[in-house]
Structure formats: C-alpha cells, structure tokens
C-alpha cells in the first residue's frame, strides 16, 4: 500500500537476486538484503511504548524508531538487513524481521537474498572505533547464521582494541545463546583490563537463557578470587532474576548462622 510521500517496501515480496554482491552497493541511500538467520534469532520490528503498553508499528527508517523483540513480527529463519550509505559509507544499520513493515522517504534498493557469509564479511569491516555503525554491525552479525559470525564475536570480545567494542561484542555473544558464550564471557570477567568491560560482561551473563544465566552468575558470585565489583554485579543480577533457582542460591548463601541477635 502506497502512502503519500513515502515509498513503502513490503520486503516479503522482494525477489531473490542470486549471489548478489555487497562490495559495490551503489548510490547513497537505503539498501536492504535478506540473509539466513542464526538459530533462535529474534524477529525484530518497531514498536512504541504508551503507559506500559507495547504497540507494533511500521518502522520508519528515517526516524530511528525503537525496534526490538516487541514488534510482534514472527521469526521465519531470515533477517532483513537495512543499510544507509552517505558518501559511500554506511551511516545507519538496522536488522529487522523480513515481514516487518518499513517505510522511508527515499527508495530502498532491494538486493534480495544474500549469502550469510557475504553479508557477514561486509558487516565485519564496520566494526572499528571510527565507525558510526559499529554497535549495530555487531548486533547484525549476531543474527547471521553460521560459525564465522559467532567466532568473530568471540574474537572481537577478546581482542578488540576499544573497550566499548569488546563490551558490545560480549553482549551480543550472550544474545546468540551459543554454548561458546560462557567461556568467553568468563574470561573477560576474570581478565579484561577495563573495569567497565568486566562489569558489562557480568550483565551479558544475565542475558543468557535463564538457567544458564543463574549458573554463570552464581559461579561469579562464588568465586572469591574475582574482584568485589564484578561479584556485586553478579549478586545484583541474580537478585533481579525472577528465577526460583536464583533465589534459592542466594538464600543458601545468606543463611549463615542465624543467631537472631536482632
């Protein structure tokens, strides 16, 4: 359905372009392509909050709409990447569900289906300190199917020069839910040189699936060799958890010798 002044792209109707390349994306403006999604990747779309009620809405690419898992779209094994170029450089990135309705004031060039590796290789170059879309690129990479994107997140979490990038990579690594997440995040908690990254790593643990999060946070809390700040973060996130197991862990640790002195 056309809206006055906008071009609405229903990406569900996009035609497949076999082996399309992202190396030369073409003129400035918005471009989009569909890639196979990692298992369990959420179906992101746009929403608005009003007095605690979440309402799905069309994603306006030009207006930085809030987007996330509240948008009501259904996962279908694919994600849709949107990239805006200015002066030949990516200045904005989104990754949404293919069925998420999108609008823009300018035309969106649809590249159809792109192989996950090709899309990942294009995105990975954007993860660098001087990039405006570093964090969005990491989010998008986390949604891509395959081992290379996952390994990239692990490597970036360990080796990126900038602490912010390491911290973001840790967060998205946890979001993938992969089993490789915990060892990498635990290593960061124990030995990342920056305090903020270590605390951010604890938060990343809290983002794992519930049981794994409780186990991992408990391990941090129980490890007296770790510095107090990260253990406090673990205590905080365990206390925030709605898991009965988390509560049981803390009850046991806080039981002490109850002499009823008060």
């Amino acid at each position, binding site marked *: 359905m056309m809206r006055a002044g906008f071009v609405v792209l229903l990406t569900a109707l996009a035609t497949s372009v076999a082996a399309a390349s992202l190396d030369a994306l073409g003129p400035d403006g918005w471009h989009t392509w569909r890639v196979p999604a990692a298992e369990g990747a959420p179906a992101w779309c746009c929403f608005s909050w009003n007095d605690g009620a979440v309402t799905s809405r069309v994603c306006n690419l030009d207006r930085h709409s809030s987007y996330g898992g509240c948008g009501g779209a259904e996962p279908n094994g694919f994600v849709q990447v949107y990239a805006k170029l200015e002066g030949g450089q990516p200045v904005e990135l989104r990754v949404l569900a293919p069925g998420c309705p999108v609008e823009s004031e300018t035309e969106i060039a649809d590249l159809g289906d792109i192989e996950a590796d090709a899309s990942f290789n294009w995105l990975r170059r954007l993860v660098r300190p001087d990039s405006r879309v570093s964090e969005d690129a990491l989010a998008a990479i986390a949604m891509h199917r395959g081992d290379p994107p996952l390994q990239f997140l692990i490597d970036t979490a360990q080796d990126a020069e900038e602490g912010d990038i390491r911290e973001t990579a840790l967060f998205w690594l946890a979001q993938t839910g992969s089993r490789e997440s915990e060892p990498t995040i635990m290593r960061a908690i124990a030995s990342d040189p920056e305090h903020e990254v270590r605390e951010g790593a604890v938060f990343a643990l809290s983002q794992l699936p519930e049981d794994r999060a409780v186990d991992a946070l408990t391990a941090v*809390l*129980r490890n*007296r060799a770790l510095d*107090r700040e990260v253990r*406090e973060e673990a*205590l*905080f996130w365990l*206390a*925030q958890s709605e898991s*009965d197991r988390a*509560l049981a862990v*803390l*009850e*046991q*640790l*806080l*039981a*002490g010798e*109850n002499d*009823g*002195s*008060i």
Partner: protein
Amino acid sequence: MINKLALACLLLAFGSAALAQTEDEAAMRQAAQDRDAAAEESEQLKIAAVEALISAPPERALAILTKVLEGEGSDELKERALFVLSQTELPEAQDILVQTAMDSDGPLRLEAIRMIGIGGEADALARLGELYANGDAETKEAVLEAYLIADETEAVYRIAANAQNAEEFEEAVETLGAMGAVDELRALRNRTDMAGILIEAYAVADDTESLRELALNSNDPELRAKAIEGLGITGADPAMLMDIYRNTDEPEIREAVREALLISDSDEAVLQLFRESRDSAEKRELLETLVIMDSDAAWEVIDSTLENEE
C-alpha cells in the same frame, strides 16, 4: 572617472580614518575599564572602612553607619553596614535595623531582617512579628529565618498556630523542625489535617517518640508509612522497625519499613527479615533492598558461607 591613483589615495584616506577610529575606540574602552577598576577599588575600600567600624566606639560607628545607609552607596556596602549595626551594642543600632527593615524594600529589607536575627536583641526581634503580619512571602520567609537564627521557637510556634493557610503553616513547621523544637511541634499535634507536614518536621527535629506513636497508632496507613520512614531518618532502633514489619500484613507498611531500614543503613535488620521470610516475592523485595544498600553484613555472610564450604 576616478583614476587609480586617486582611488588609492581615497582608500588610504579611508583606511587611515578607519584606523584612527579603531584607535579611538580602543582608547575609550581602555578608559572605561580603568574607570571601572578605580570604582571597584573605591568600593572595596569603602566596604573595608565600614567593616572596620566594628571595632570603633559604638557612638562614632553609629553616626557613620547611619550616613552610609542614607547615602547613595551600593547595596553591598549598605548590607555590610547592617551587619556592623547588628553587632553594635546600642539600642539605637537596633532601632535603625528595624527601621531599615520597615522602610526599605528588596534585598536591603531582607538583609535587615536577617541582621535582626543575627543580633538577637529581644526588642528588635519582637518587632519582626509586625513585619511578618504585613509582609509578602519573601518577607515572611526572611522573618522565619531570623527567628531560626535567634532560636526564637515561641515566635515561630505562634506563627504556625495562627497560620492563615497550609503554606504558612508548612513554612513555620519546617522552621520548627530545623530548630529541633520538639515541644512546640508536639503542641501542634491537634492539627490532624496537617499531620503529613508535621511528620516531616518530627523527623527533622529527631522526635522519635512522636513518630513511633504515629507509626503504631495512626488510623491512616499513608501517615503510618510516612511516620515509619521518618523513623528511618531519625535512626530509630532497627528492632522497633522490625517489630512493626513482623506485626503487619500491609504491603505499604512493609515497604515503608524496608525504606526506613535502607535510610538508616540497617542492613543486618534487612538480612534478618530476609532469613525469616517464607514468601518468595517478599524475599526478593528484601534482597533488592540488601543489594541497594551494598550490605557489608550480606557480604560477610556470603564469604563466610563460601569459606566454610572449602
């Protein structure tokens, strides 16, 4: 047609004129700056001279200070004069303060009122009642401040007791709280419509007894909760707060107790309540309070438990 030479001459002439104009402007600016600096230095000298009068014979100081107040000097100069008057042990000095408070307006009036408070002379303080009765909001506030400085609890109590509206009552009661005027505040307890305001003042005045009474016996749960939080501010015995917690099922009251224990940093009490609780939701609330408090007691227990496991 103007030839090039003539044009160059014209440009040179205009350029020179422009340069001369720029130089004149700079000279004028410099002269103005010099005048300002001289005026500022003169002002500072006058202020220093006024302040030095504090050591002069009172009668001599009085004459000069009167002239300063009547003269064209700056407000800052006059305010300094008011301070010296407040320290001058002559009845005439207090009269001048009162007269200045009555006759002036704006900052000078307010400063005169404040100086009456600082001077603390009884007759001058007594005249503030008249100023309060006829004054605007700023004047009333200044009078209350003067009474606070002079510790005139009775005068503030009278204002509260005779307050024409809730705002006046609140300002006076807040002042009594700041003065620690427990007896006067208790005498206002019959103002049940103003109980919320009084509770806050009890907390500031450290009146644990009144707060406890309200926490246990008020029919209004909101006031009970407010009184309980006040007990946190006064640092009441955590055992009292724990008893209140144990003897109620009302969520708002329990929340108020948690808040009070948080305010008074009573982490051991929160930990004890956590251990006693058999309700998951409640345990989570208490746990959250412990975490917010960054409880040393909790960490001691956690680390002790871990040590015993090793």
